[in-house]
Every structure is written in C-alpha cells, then in structure tokens.
C-alpha cells in the first residue's frame, strides 16, 4: 500500500513539475504575443499601413451638423 502511494506521489510530483514548466512556457509565449500585438498596434505602424496599403489619407476637415 505504502509503495503504491509512494509511486503515485512520485508520478504526481513529476506531473506537477511538467505542468509548472508548461505554465512558464505559456506565460513566455503569452508575453511574446502581447508584445507582437502592441508592436502592430503602434500608431505609426497603423498609419503606414493605412496610407500605403489601404489607400487611406488623413482627414482634412470635419463638418459638424447641428442637431
């Protein structure tokens, strides 16, 4: 009985260690993705894409219509 418990403990410990490593790995990956998102959301990046790839231009005037 004690032996079975011991084996189970060892196996759970190993699983625990593996999962911890996986968490760290996913956290790192998440950080990398967050960084990529932020780099792509940089306004100069958006403006360049809008102007060069999407054919957009800056607004000249805005007409306000009185309600």
């Amino acid at each position, binding site marked *: 009985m004690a032996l079975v418990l011991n084996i189970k403990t060892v196996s759970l410990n190993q699983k625990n260690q593996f999962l911890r490593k996986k968490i760290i790995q996913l956290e790192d990956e998440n950080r990398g993705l967050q960084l990529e998102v932020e*780099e792509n959301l940089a*306004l100069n990046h958006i403006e360049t894409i809008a102007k060069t790839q999407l054919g957009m231009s800056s607004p000249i005037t805005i007409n306000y219509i009185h309600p």
Partner: protein
Amino acid sequence: MKGYPLREAYLKLGIICFMITLILRIAYLQIIEHEFFKTKSTIQLKRLIKLYPHRGYIFDRNMVPLALTESTYASFLISEKLEPPEEIIKTVSNILKLDSQDILQKLQVTKGSFLWLKRQLSKTEYKQLKENNLKHIGFIKTEKRVYPKGIFASHVLGFVGIDNQGLGGLEHKFDFFLRGTPGKVILEKDPNGYPLLSGEKIAFPPYDGNHLVTTLDEFIQYISQKYLEEAILENNAEKGQIIVMNPQNGDILAMAAYPNFDPNNEENMIKKNPCISDVYEPGSVFKLITFAIALDNEIITPKTILQVPEELKLKNVTISEAHKRTKGESDMKTSSEILEQSLNVGTSLISIKLGEEKLYEGIKSFKIGELTGIELPAESKGLVRPLKNWSGVDIAMISFGQGIAVTPIQMISAVAAIANNGIYVKPRILQYMTNANFETLKAIPISKIRLKFKEKTMHELKEMMKNVVEKGTGIPAKVEGYSIAGKTGTSQKPKTNGLGYESGKYVASFIGFFPVEKPSYIILVIIDSPKKSIYGSMVAAPVFKKITKDIVQHFHIPPENLQKNSKIK
C-alpha cells in the same frame, strides 16, 4: 614474541600515537572546524535556485503598454582550454555577428574558462544557436526590456542597462519600484546534483515589479512626435521639443523631443530629456509673464496707450523690433497691440515703468528658476540671475525673454497658471503606481497653488492672448471655430561660452491653449535653429495648429459656436 619485547613496545606505542593523532584530528574537524564543514556540507547538499522577478510595465493614461518585458536567453561559452575549437567560434561569431578574434582575445585576457557571448539574444539568434547544437555553448534564461512602440516617448520612458537596471527617464527614476524583489528556492540534492523529491524545500517567492501608469496620451504623444519631426526636417532645424499639458490638473499628455532614439537599440541612446533638462531663452513668449505682472500691479490695462518708438537706447544697447514698421503706421500703441504685434520696445517701456524689483518678484512668483518637481530625473532649475546682478539694461532684455533661461517645462507650467486664472498646477507625468496584480499602490496627487495674482488680471491677459491669435503674430495658429489664446516667440541663441549670442541662430517657439474660457490643452512648441524661416509665427505656430486640429478631430470636440447653440437649445 617473547624474544622481541622492545619491538612489541614500539609497535604498541606507534598504534597509540596513531590513535591519538586520529582522535585529535577528529576532534579538530568536529569541534574546531565544525562551522566550516557544516557550511560546506550545506552548500554541497543544497541547491539554490534564484527566481528573478518580472520588471514592472509602463503604461500610458489609457493603459496602452509602453514598456514591457520579454523572456530571452543569454549565451555563454565554457571551455577548459583557452582556445576552444575554431569551428565553434566561427559559427558563433557568424550567428551573433561578433568578431571571432575578439572572442579568443577575451578568453586569453580573462584567462578563464567562462565567457559571456551575448546577454540578450534575439529569438532568431537563440534558435540558430540551438539548432547548431554546439558544444561548449550554454544558455541562461533571462529577461529583456522591450519598448513595443520604438521611439515613442523614449525621452520620458528612458532605457535600461544590460542587467535591466534603469538608466534614464522613468526607468531610472522609478527603478526601485519597477525592478521587484528576487526570490529563491533552496532544494536538497543527491550526490549527482538532482533535487531530492523527499528532501527539504525552502521557497522565497519573487515579487514582481510595480507598474507605472503615466499621464501620457498615446494619440497626442504620437502626433506631437510626428509633427515635431516634420517641422524639424522642413525647416532644417537642429532640434526641438513639444509639450502638451492639461492645465487643469497638470497632466503631461505629450512630451516630445527631437532628435529622438529607440530605447530597444543600445546604440545612440540620448541620456537626457531636453524638455526638463535643457534651458533656452524664451524670447517673446516671456512677454506674457511681464504683462501679467504689469497688469496685476496696475501699471497698464489692456487699453493703456503708450508711445512706442521703433528703437530704444538703453545704456550702450539699442533695443529694436524684429519687423520694420509700415509707412504711416502710428507709434501710439495700446498694451494689447504691443502684445499682439510682439513689440520689444513697448514691452521694455512697460517693464521700466514696472521697475526691477516688481519684475523680479513677479518672475519668481511664477516659479521660474525653480524645479517644478515633475517625476523625472535630471530636471534643471533654469537661470534667473539674482536682482543684485542685473545690469541697467537687463530689465528691458528680460521683459522680452532674453538674458533669462528657462526649461520648457517651467515655461509651460507658468503659462498654464495664466490659463488657469492664476492657479499654478504642478506638472505630473505619473498618475499612479500599481502592484503586479494591478492594485493601486500610490496615486500622485494633483498639487495646486493660488499665485498672488488677481483673477481679473488673468482674464484680461487671456483676452489679449486671444487677440494675438485672432489678429496678431499668432494668426498661423488659428483654428476656425475654436477660441485659442497664444503667443509667439523668436529668440536669439546664446553662445555656449555665455558671451553674447550666436549670429544667425534663433529659437522659434509658440505657446497656446484652448478653449480660452476653461482650457483643457496647453501646447508649447520649440524649434531650435530653423534655417528656412526663423520666426515663431512661421515655424512653431503652424505645428501648434496641426496638433490642435488633430486633437479636436480625435476627441470629437465640436466648434465652440456649436457648443454654445446646443446650450441655448
């Protein structure tokens, strides 16, 4: 045996001596050297794993991340020989773009078996080194500071060193809060160095660094940097700064400086923030301070008429105007016109009427020559010479912003007090600090001081500033539909040795705020040494206009006449 009693005695003696020596040695090791060997065994039995905290992030006012951290690896070379296999060195130097001779030289100089190759590898570098599966090359997991928006607000954010220690800007000022506290795990290990599952385990968790939430607005900072760079290149200027502030609470919405730098790139780091560290002679923008003091002391009213000649001789100095008068133009000017047309002689006459003492006291009450206390390192005090050091002509020169040096942050804070009807608000770049779980730890309070100026004075001055933009030198800053108060400035640049002024070098500036009644935005534009045109009205005021137009469009601020009509309805 009976035949050898002497031998037997010698043998016994020898054994006894040996036993005594052995006992003494054991006693020495167990009692006298007890602590030494206990420590040694602990070191051998226990394994210490350091847990590094994550450096805190820096955000803009809308929680847009401006400084983040990324997991990375540091690579090292470990070799018993001073000259490891040539092939390895060649491959490593190719991947990391290092000089192979340099690596070998470093190994020989340090005479060691360990050498850092690169502390913060890029993803590609790490992948390539890993793929090559090189002997003698090892990796340690580490963290790298990353600025996802590159040059964005780099003078404010600052940068970090190789060990992620803050070396400039907010990174340096708040390094203690950002860096966090390292933790450690102590494990018992077997003779092969593997942790024992049943062994003792002591853990001290790491505490991640705190996050900083700044007052910067991503959009306003972006347009400020963009238009500043455009203006610098268009006018072939040397450098420039823009500050955008909310005069109601002192929040710095943008702080841009050119030349700028990318804090992700170790080269070309600019270590100071010119918006708070550099001083300049403000020129005609400073007339606002002189007029505020003169109006408050009732030396003038906006309608006071003065006879203003084209030139004024004071001691051995001739004060003149930047522009020649048109034929038949009257020399009788109201105070309001003097400000509108930015007349140096008129302002000098007003300051002479005011007197040195009142002018000096007034300047000091606007906190010129004092630190503003903004949460950034290396702020300069500016230069206001003590009254006793003023020469006879200084009163006139200082009245129009020459012979006095201020920092851009001092200038905008002083004019913000005018916009705020006499309430000086301490500028702040940091809103609050949170812990790693985003729970607020400390909020930076808004600090307001009522200056010894009448509210009426400030209202009058604001109306005069409005006229500057409506019909004076500030027309290029005018945005249709919005009430804007402002002032242009064109000042001579002092020589670096402090003796006289550089010929042909000027600082063009413009300061303005809107809406005049209750301003939400005050913008200071400084363009240093422009070559195309030298005037604040031609170089800096159009930049103010561009920023203002973008702000009203982006934040959907309707023109004031529409707002008023809506209120009536």
